[in-house]
Structures are given as C-alpha cells and as structure tokens.
C-alpha cells in the first residue's frame, strides 16, 4: 500500500475529491497547510511595516491506496489539479508498512 500526499490549490479540492471518488478511491484526509516553492509570495503591509509573505495557503490531501490504484489516483490528481501555472503543487508517494481500520481491526488491503 502507498500513501499519496498531494499539495494542491485550495479551490481544486472539490474537483479532486470528486474525481478520486469516481476513480474508486474510498477515503481521503485533508489538511490546511501553507506552502512555499517556486511560486513567489506577495507583499503585505501593516501601517508601513512591510512583510514578504512567502507561504501561500494550500491544501494537502492524503490518500492511502493499494498498489493497483496508485497509478490511476496519481493520474487523476495530476489531471484535475493542474492549471499549468506555477504553484500547482507536488505529489509525494511513500510506502506504508501497515494500514489498519480502527473500527474493525482489519489490516492491509481490506482496511482500505
């Protein structure tokens, strides 16, 4: 099993969720984050004190899927979350040692 973490734009969340659901991904966890990368930030100014705000609001989604679904899930995210402009975000994929469903104690694929 793999964990797919994707940092995406805020307003793409709904679309990505719908697309992943159609791709048979059955769960997802979302976190509000702030990101910093190639996309440059902006200046903010408070009574003359100027700050460069490098961190922009982004959303991180975490999806745990079985190996067989990884490719489709990643492609789905890439297709839907892409605008082509700097700041679209990144996808990180990690191997998981184990997955457990708390309610039933099921592990591995059946816990998905």
């Amino acid at each position, binding site marked *: 099993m793999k964990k797919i973490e994707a940092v995406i734009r805020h307003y793409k969340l*709904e679309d990505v969720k719908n697309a992943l659901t159609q791709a048979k991904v059955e769960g997802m966890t979302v976190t509000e984050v702030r990101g910093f990368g190639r996309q440059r930030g902006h200046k903010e*100014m408070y009574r003359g004190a100027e700050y460069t705000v490098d961190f922009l*609001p982004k959303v991180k989604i975490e999806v745990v899927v079985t190996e067989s679904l990884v490719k489709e899930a990643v492609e789905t995210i890439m297709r839907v979350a892409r605008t082509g402009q700097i700041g679209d975000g990144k996808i990180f994929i990690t191997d998981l040692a184990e997955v457990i469903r708390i309610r039933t104690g099921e592990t591995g694929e059946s816990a998905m």
Partner: protein
Amino acid sequence: MNRAAKIAVLALLASLSLATAAWAEGGDDRLAPAKLDRGNTAWMLTSSALVLMMTAPGLALFYCGLVRKKNVLGVMMQCVFLMGLMSLIWAFWGYSLAFGSDVLGGVIGGGDFLMLKGVLPSLATDGKTVTVPMMDAYGIPRSVHMVYQMMFFIITPGLICGAFAERMKFSAMVLLSVLWGTFVYCPIAHWVWSDTGWLNPANTAAKFPAFDFAGGTVVHISSGISALVCALLIGKRLGYGQEPMPPHNLTYTCIGAALLWVGWFGFNAGSALEANVLAANAFVATHMAAAAGTVSWALAEWWHRGKPSILGACSGAVAGLVCITPAAGAVTPLAGIVLGLLAGFVCYQACLLKSKLGYDDALDAFGVHGVGGTLGAILTGVFATQLVVPGSSTAQGLLEGNAQQVVNQVVGVLASGLLGVIGTFIILKVIDSVVGLRVTQEEELMGLDVSQHGEEGYIFV
C-alpha cells in the same frame, strides 16, 4: 416635551417671573435657539449614531461572514471606506442635490446647500451675530438633519456591494459609489423626501404621493435593483456553481444581523425626526416586522428543508426590516407583523429562485433589498392608516378604501427602479471602459484581501 412647554407658555401669559425660573446656558442663543428641542435633538443624534453603526460594524459583519475567508477584508473595506468617501460627497454636494430646491423641473435638487452652505452657522454682516440654521418643524439644527441623512447615503451603496462581492476592483467600487450616489441616489431622495418632491406625500402638490417613511424606495429598491444590474454585468464568480462557496463565518453574519436590527431603530424611528408618537410607532412596527421576518423565514426553511437555519433567521430579520422601512410611519405594528411574515417568506423564495436563474448576486442584495423593498413599498399602500399617518383623518391605504395609494406606491417603485437600472447600467459601462470592473482571474483566485489591499484577515497560524 415642547408640547408641555407650549402649554405652560399659554397658561402663563399673565405673569412675568419666568426668566429666573428657567436657567441660562451662558446666555448663548446659538446653542439653544428658540426652536431647539433638546429631546428631539438627543434622539436624532442617537439615531444618527445608530444608522452609522449599521454600515460598520453592522453591514460589514453581516456581509463579510458570507464571503470566503480570502475576501473578508475586501468586504469590510468597502463598508469602512464608504463611511469616509460618501460622507465627504454628501457634505460637498450630495445633501444639496437631494434636499436643495428643485432644478431641472424637480428631477434633482439645486445648489442651495453646496459645501454645507445654509447648513452650518453663518455670521451676519455685523461680524458678531451668528445664525444657526434650524429645522423649525422639528426643533433640530439643520446640520443634524444633514448628518442623519448622510448616514443613509453611506449605507445605500454599501448594500449594493453584496452583489459584486469577491470580484470587483476596489477602484471600480469607489467610482461606482461616487457616480451612483450622485446620479441615482440623490435624484430619488429628492423626489421622495425633499419638500417639493413629486413623490412626497408631505408635499401637497405631489403628483404621486407615495409613502416612503425611511427609505424603501430611496435606499432598498434603488440599491437592490442596481445590485441586480451589477451582478448581471460583472458576471459570476470563478467557480460559481461548481465549487462550494459557503459563508466562511456565520457568527459574524449573525452579529451583523443583530447590529443591523438594533441600528434600524435609528433608521426607521429616527425618520420621524422627533422623539414623538410617530417615532414610537415606527420603532414598534419596525421591531415587530423584524421579529415576524425572523420567525417566518426560519419556519419556511424548517417546513421546506427540515431544519431552521441561523442564516435563515438572520436573513428573515433583515427582510422584515427592509419591508417595514417604507411603512414604519404609515402602518400599525400589527400590520408590521403581517409585513414581516410576508417578507420572510417572499425573500426566501426569491433567494431560492436565484439558484435557479443562475445569476450570481453573491450576497442576495437583490433578493433581500430589491424584493423586500418592493414588497414593503406596495404593502404600505395597502396597510397605511389614518391611525398613524401624521395629520391624516381620511382613508389612507387600500384597506381603508383608498386604492389609489397602491397605484402611487407602484409609481414610486417603478420610478426609482427605472432610474436604478438605467443609471447603474450606464455608470458601470463607463467605469468598465475607464478602469475595468473586475479583478484579474489570478487576483480573484488569490482573494481580494491580498490582491486589492495587501493584507490578510486572519493569521491564526
């Protein structure tokens, strides 16, 4: 109060020892001229403060809670900046255009009060005697009338902002407010409230005397219909109908609605310009309509969707308040309940309809102010009663047998609506060609707070 004084005066004609019984304020006639009524003055100063409170924090909170987090300051800024901008314009020329004597055949007021001439005290040629212009009928200084009306001039363009929220350029909003205030608000205010207005029932020569006690046409219909034009011309928000755009902070909206309710007492009961029985009637009728609207919208939702929502209750309160605005000085509080009940229900339907029609009046400025204002204006023609209308002792509204009044009210609605539509359309076209109406796509996605103002609303991280 002055009534008590009057009686005393009449009774005391045979005596002389009065001067010592009352006290002097340093003997300064300017500060307490013959006509000054302190009770009325106290009430009108209080009312002016209450109406200002409606724009901010009232409307600022009501509206800002409904947008997405990234636009929260954009909405608040519109309200606060208008408190500055519109005040200056009103002092410079707005009050004069609205309340000056007829020019252009009564389409608008003249220059009588430009730069507060004739509103502020003036010095006689002796270089010593100071004259303070008073509104004798009410015992208040004219400057109080000016500043009270100023607060209406501030909030009206503020209401429109609900329609184009989250996407209009700040510069375009500024231009719109200046032009709209001058060319749409001032004429309508002149028709309805100036002594010689062709819609003013207090003007015996009025062609279509239509009741508009506190601004059903001047404030709500004008802004509501103009809001619709704005929503149509500027187009939908990016992602509208696809992404969810729920209110980001309903606690703000609720606080805002409550402050609007409280402030509205200044708006409506203050419109009597006196602390008298008429003000009392307006106060009670206003409160009852707000209460009925709250219950009505919430119950409609409860029935229709299974749950009463707080946004519904708050929207219903505002709908009731909008609806009673033209009527508060012409109908009884019991009629106020009827107006409120209808307003809550009808405005709820109007908001449902919007979803179907598909235009993006972001915060329902039209659905609440346009629809509620029109409903109120017409129902005023139905429920107006000699029990309330000052100086009347004959039938006033349809229920008392005077069907003509409904016609007059409709004329008032159409006239102000028409000017609203045409004026706003032209103004927006002009602005669009000069600075453009809408922020860029990137700015819109980023949010107006950062793109237009270089700030963020919340830094909770």
